[in-house]
């Protein structure tokens, strides 16, 4: 095999691995960003920035290191978004706070839900409705959690990172991760229980 052919096949493998990795994490990354920024476009931007940073700086890393690196980049990008937002808000305090509050109040959990696809047709309408409503409520309560608690909860229980990895991604101690996770779980469970949701 010629050197060029070897390099091409190798390049394709790496490109494909990276592409598949990004594809596998993009939806959850979008949701994580959405819970934090409450806006579809801003959340997609956050995911795009994170993907660009990953491919620019860490594309030559082993594939098994990518999930952790991506999570760390994603969390930092979300925090950067907050910082920029904070600076912007100092100039438009009144309007920003008024419109933000209004959006929050008017947010209907069911607005975040999509119509069920073919895989769900067999489900009874009442069951489907209940499921959508539960998801809406879970997401609403997740979005209400303090950012660090939500971050720890999602990384630990949704992304499946262990305590040490979560601490690394968040840039804090393992003790803090345990505290954040415990508080987030307790708050979420209490809030859902208060709304009559039994998981």
């Amino acid at each position, binding site marked *: 095999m010629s050197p060029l052919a070897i390099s091409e096949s190798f390049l394709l493998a790496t*490109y494909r691995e990276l592409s598949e990795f990004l594809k596998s994490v993009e939806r*959850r990354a*979008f949701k994580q960003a959405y819970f934090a920024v409450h806006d579809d476009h801003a959340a997609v931007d956050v995911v795009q920035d994170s993907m660009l940073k990953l491919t620019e700086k860490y594309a030559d890393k082993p594939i098994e290191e990518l999930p952790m690196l991506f999570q760390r980049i994603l969390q930092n990008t979300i925090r950067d978004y907050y910082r920029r937002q904070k600076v912007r808000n100092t100039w438009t305090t009144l309007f920003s706070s008024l419109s933000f509050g209004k959006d929050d109040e008017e947010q209907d959990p069911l607005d975040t839900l999509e119509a069920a696809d073919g895989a769900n047709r067999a489900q009874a309408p009442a069951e489907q409705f209940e499921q959508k409503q539960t998801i809406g409520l879970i*997401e609403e309560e997740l979005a209400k959690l303090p950012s660090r608690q939500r971050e720890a909860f999602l990384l630990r229980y949704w992304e499946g990172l262990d305590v040490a990895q979560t601490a690394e991604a968040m840039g804090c101690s393992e003790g803090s991760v345990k505290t954040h996770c415990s508080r987030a779980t307790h708050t979420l469970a209490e809030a859902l229980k208060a709304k009559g949701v039994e998981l």
Partner: protein
Amino acid sequence: MNEREFTTKVKEYLNYSSSRLSPEVFSGLEAARKRALENFSPAHAEELEWAGAHGTVAHTHGKSHHFGGRRWLALAVLLAALAGGIYWQQEMNQDDDIDAALLGGELPVNAYIDHGFQTWLERSSQH
């Protein structure tokens, strides 16, 4: 329900929800992914071509930084060779200058190596 069961249930609901994003979000994410991957390709292609051309494609993930190191080594060797060439060229030019002075002078070349001529020259200058 204990904490583990609760978080597992929440995870299931979130997985379900994340698989049902709006078409606009799906296309936005797809475009973001493609843009990020476009950004990735050129640098790696260049790096890998270099490695391939030198028959060093025993690549494993995470080892590509060796290619950069080898590239620097090759550059250092090239610069050293260039500096050596320039030095040799200057030495050659110096020899040419001496040759030109000898040939262009009024004295015959043999006068410089004839001890008798040197003695005669000193004696003549004393008178």
